[in-house]
């Protein structure tokens, strides 16, 4: 998958048109009387805010076709930015309208219309909670599973109240056909949540997997080997990832994304993770035979055909790289691969021995970079920076595509360093895990 300006512009236009759908519906057909700039601006912000909110369900990273175009991490970060934008637009809607005409305060008056007042108070609080819990999830002490539940419930609630409010006010949505179109579109957005949370798990229940082995790796990392039960497995590309649910049922809030670490041309798959959170820390206790349900594959962090590979990876960020290298080894891929592999200590270098073996079989050069090297270390030491990458850049960088995966500071440094070294941004692929 190759990035391009044209593709970016196309998606930008698509997004703008979709976000403006409620406005288009409002201005279509019969139009109400003009009520002055401020009131109309306030109304427009409400419609656009609703439009962005609806699109949040489409650009949530869980629609494979959309996520594949730009990568899950980019989509999720964009989702975050747009969420803040929707929050500002929707909150500006009542503020501007009430400032223009204080009579509209009655919408919040329980004495005049109790259900309406309760719904609008709910949506105001829910919107603040939704945004704050997403930006400061960890500060709130919310587990990923609880956050996911809260996020789904609040966003559906806000969408429902927003559409009901538009229907009930109906100032711009008269005659009825306008309201029916609006409800139809937003019912589709709402359905996407049910599809992700209920339909997809149901579909994955028909294609279960089984843990066959739990293997300890260096640096408190664990590899789960999984085999398909009663089906042929999953067709995925190396560098991609899946959402996994472990246990007897796929209907669980505990669903997490992990990159494949296995070669991508076999029915058996492997996922490797470092024991960092509650979920990954439990991997060492998983018994072979445990049921698993996979959703995917997702991701656009896949090797570009015809290009050599230059990988900058840190710690457990090596997993998609291992998938690429194991596939190259298995397929006797003649392309060159350079791996700059950053780790704190030599003992913590996951897959260290296997990388040595792979070097025997393919044209792979591994540059170990250690933060705390052992005595007598003659290799690279310190952190990823421009000088290090320049030193290890091939003579023909234009024949390479660049893949970055690792801790945030390393990703930031590597992305900017490669750009500073004149690498075309369209050939730099990065995958970030710590997004949610």
């Amino acid at each position, binding site marked *: 998958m190759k990035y391009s300006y044209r593709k970016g512009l196309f998606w*930008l236009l698509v*997004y*703008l048109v979709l*976000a*403006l759908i409620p*406005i288009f519906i*409002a*201005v279509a057909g019969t*139009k*109400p*009387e*003009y*009520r002055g*700039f*401020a009131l*109309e*601006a306030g*109304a*427009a*912000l409400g419609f*656009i805010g609703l439009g*962005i909110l609806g699109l949040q369900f489409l650009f949530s990273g869980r629609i494979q076709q959309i996520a594949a175009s730009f990568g899950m*991490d*980019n989509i999720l*970060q*964009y989702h975050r*930015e*747009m969420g*803040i*934008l929707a929050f*500002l*637009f929707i909150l500006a809607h009542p503020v501007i309208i009430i400032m223009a005409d204080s009579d509209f305060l009655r919408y919040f008056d329980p004495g005049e219309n109790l259900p309406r007042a309760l719904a609008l108070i709910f949506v105001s609080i829910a919107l603040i909670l939704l945004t704050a819990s997403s930006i400061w999830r960890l500060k709130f002490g919310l587990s990923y599973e609880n956050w996911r539940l809260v996020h789904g419930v609040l966003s559906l609630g806000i969408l429902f109240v927003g559409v009901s409010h538009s229907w009930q006010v109906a100032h*711009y949505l008269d005659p009825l056909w306008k309201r029916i179109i609006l409800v139809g579109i937003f019912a589709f957005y709402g359905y996407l949540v049910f599809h992700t949370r209920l339909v997809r798990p149901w579909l994955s229940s028909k294609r279960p997997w089984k843990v066959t082995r739990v293997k300890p790796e260096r640096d408190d990392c664990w590899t789960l080997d999984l085999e398909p039960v009663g089906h042929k497995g999953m067709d995925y590309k190396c560098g991609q990832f899946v959402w996994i649910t472990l246990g007897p049922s796929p209907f669980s809030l505990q669903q997490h994304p992990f990159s494949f670490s296995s070669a991508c041309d076999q029915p058996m798959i492997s996922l490797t993770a470092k024991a960092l959170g509650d979920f990954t820390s439990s991997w060492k206790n998983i018994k072979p035979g445990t049921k698993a349900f996979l959703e995917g594959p997702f991701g656009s962090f896949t090797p570009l055909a015809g290009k050599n590979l230059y990988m900058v990876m*840190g*710690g457990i960020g090596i997993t998609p790289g291992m998938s690429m290298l194991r596939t190259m080894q298995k397929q006797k891929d003649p392309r060159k691969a350079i791996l700059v592999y*950053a*780790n*704190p200590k030599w003992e913590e270098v996951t897959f260290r021995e296997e990388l040595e073996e792979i070097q025997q079989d393919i044209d792979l050069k591994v540059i170990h970079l250690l*933060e705390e090297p052992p005595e007598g270390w003659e290799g690279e030491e310190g*952190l*990823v*920076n421009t000088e290090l990458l320049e030193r290890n850049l091939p003579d023909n960088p234009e024949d390479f595509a660049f893949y970055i995966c*690792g*801790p*945030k*500071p*390393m*990703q*930031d*440094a590597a*992305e*900017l*360093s490669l*750009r500073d070294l004149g690498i075309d941004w369209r050939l730099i692929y*990065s995958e*970030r895990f710590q997004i949610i």
Partner: protein
Amino acid sequence: MKKPIKKHKKLFYKTIRRMGDLVGLLLLFAAVLFAFRGFG
């Protein structure tokens, strides 16, 4: 890896944020345009 390199700014977040800002400005412009012309 634990210590970020100060001279590097966060390119990834900055790029997406700029994209978000651009979309926000264009949508705000649309809102103003509609408010000027009115729905009537």
